[in-house]
């Protein structure tokens, strides 16, 4: 069995991890399509950290 399916099976076996399973599907898709760069870009898009502008706006 491939890594994709094995991980998906492990996630499916856990209760309440449907969102994690869906996220894995997207992550794998990005990795499969564009390799490390694709997965990195996908995770980068997900990551939303406050930047200087946010801090300045709040201040």
């Amino acid at each position: 069995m491939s890594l994709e399916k094995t991980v998906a099976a492990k996630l499916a076996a856990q209760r309440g991890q449907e969102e994690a399973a869906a996220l894995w599907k997207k992550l794998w898709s990005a990795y499969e399509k564009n390799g490390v760069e694709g997965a990195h870009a996908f995770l980068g898009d997900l990551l939303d950290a406050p930047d200087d502008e946010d801090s300045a706006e709040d201040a």
Partner: protein
Amino acid sequence: MSANDNARWRLASVTIRQFRGVAKETTYAFDGRPAMLHGNNGVGKSTVAVALQWILFGRFYGDVLPNTKLDSFLAPVQGKGKAYSGEVAFSRGSERLVVSRDGGAKSFTVRLGKDTWSDEKAEAKRDEILGLDMDTFVRAVLLQQSRIRGLLLDEPKERNKALDRLLGMDAAEHLLDLVRPRDFSNAAVAWRDVIRDEQQQLRSQEELLGTQLEQCQRTARDLRFLNKDLNAPGLEVRYLELSRDLVALGRKYKVEVDELPPVPGAAKVASVARAFEQAVRAIRLGAELRKRLTPVQKAIADLSGLSERSGEAVEARDSAVQELEAFVKTHGDRKTLLGERAEAQERLKAHRQELKEADGLRQLLLDAHDFVKRAKSRECPVCERVLPERTDLAARLRERSAGSASDAMEGVRRSVEKAEGRIEEIGAALQDLTVLGKEVEVARKTLEKVREKAAEVLGATVPENKLQARVDESLGARREEEKKLALAVEAMEADLESVDGRERQLRAVLLPVVQKRDEVAAHEEKIEAAKKRHEKSEARGAEMDRYAAQLEVIRKAVIGAKEDLANELLGKAAPRAQELYRRLVRQPVFDTLEIEANAKAAKVDYTFQVTAGAGGAARDARLVLSDGQLTATALALFFALAESSQHALDLLYVDDPTQNLDLPCKEAMAKVVAEIARRRQVIVSTQDEDFVTSLKAEGFPKNAIIHHITAWDGNPTVETSAPASV
């Protein structure tokens, strides 16, 4: 061809265009048969293995070469084009599967019989038809030396990575490197920090504003402002009252001023204050009192000047007259002096005539003396009478001219000098008299001007003797008038100062209260806006927490999956790997190979050990085996993994398998490879001619296609021998 040959796909050909070691186009035909590619280093053998993976999957794990872009790596070594492309053909019985990739057009197609798929559908179809993905391909089909090189390194991390590559676990390892839940939980914390920091700042600001407002209000109450005044409507009412009082003052002092504009809030106060200031200035400058006061003050200034100048002018005039009179008394008036001078001049004239005559007589006597002395005459040279004989005429003449003539002249000369002195004295007196006369005239004119000015200021001509008194009297009256007006102006200033003070107090005391209230209100709005923003930030933080949790779960699942997959692969391959280890490595003591994957908290490590017989003490393989033995161990594992994998590709492509191997090991390797080649399609790429010889000696199938790459000039020169299929 066996029945198995019809069940699985075999490699039929690889066509390479403008790719790495191929500047134009080269096709390597394999016809589904075992094959050998051999030739010296640098003739483009590895280009075929790299092209095979790129055409099928379009990518590589990690960097193909560190710090090199894929485009640059794939471009032809000789030539400028980057439009690399290629085609891989597989055959299964009568079926033909063609996979094409074009780097320039960025296209990928899969063609099976009459069906053709492109791009994503083609990718899916490829995996479906071949029954493998890239992980499996690199684990079970294509062995490149570079994939096992890390096993020879001392660093455990590198050895783990090499085993990852051998087992096709690169994807799992890459994803474990990329999936970092902590980044997301840190982001969540950062969002909450932003909220907390801002809330803290807003609270501090709120407290400060509260304190400042309380201080402003206390000050206002101390100055008798009422609670009802301490807000915007209160401020407006106060300004309204002020406006009414200001208009009333205008009426009182007969200056028309407008009512002040309304003050609906603190922002309007500045412009209203300017209007107020202008109105006060208008009253101050335009009041009738001030209009009346101005001419009085001017008259006082004029009269003060007159009072001072009139006394001085009379005194100057009197003094000049007195001096003139005293002079006349002493020297006489002009007429007298002129008469005296005329008389003196007459006398002088007479004396000068006398002097002339006396001088003539003397000259005559001198001439007579000179004559008598020269002629010795006996007659008088004057009267021509005969002189007595004894008379010495010359001596007598000399005596007379030197005596009586000279005395007379001397007397006349003194009279002349006296007359001249007197004339000079009279001239000087006349000049002094003229000067004194002019001084009197100037003093009189000055006095006249003062009187004219007094007539102008007093409104009537005033006799000289009453001038000073009248000026002083008028000055007193005006000063009295000025005093009364000044008191009235003072009262007006007090009125203006009163309203001005009230306005200043409104600005200095009441306005800050209203402004501070505005600031408090604005701050409350800011807090409300911040609450909404915080809700969003909180939601973003919560989302980051969710992702962190999900990624943690994914990460654990990947670790677990990697461990499962690795152990499953190792388990399946173990017996064959053990057999090949013994045949290829031939370690006399440590004859048993143990490889196992172990999941840790954040990664999967491998146990890579050898033991002396089953149950013997395990030793780290790196500590026991030489580099060549380690390479042979890796190849044993690769062949075992390849043979145990289930997919639809009946192909084993081995690129340069004999690095670091000694001759016995190479011979054992040739035997193993020849055995496998008899069961499935094996393609061996090597620069090792001994190995080629060994392969042939060990029974590498006789129908194998041999590609001998004899030279390279940007494109390989290939000599192919393809015996008729057996």
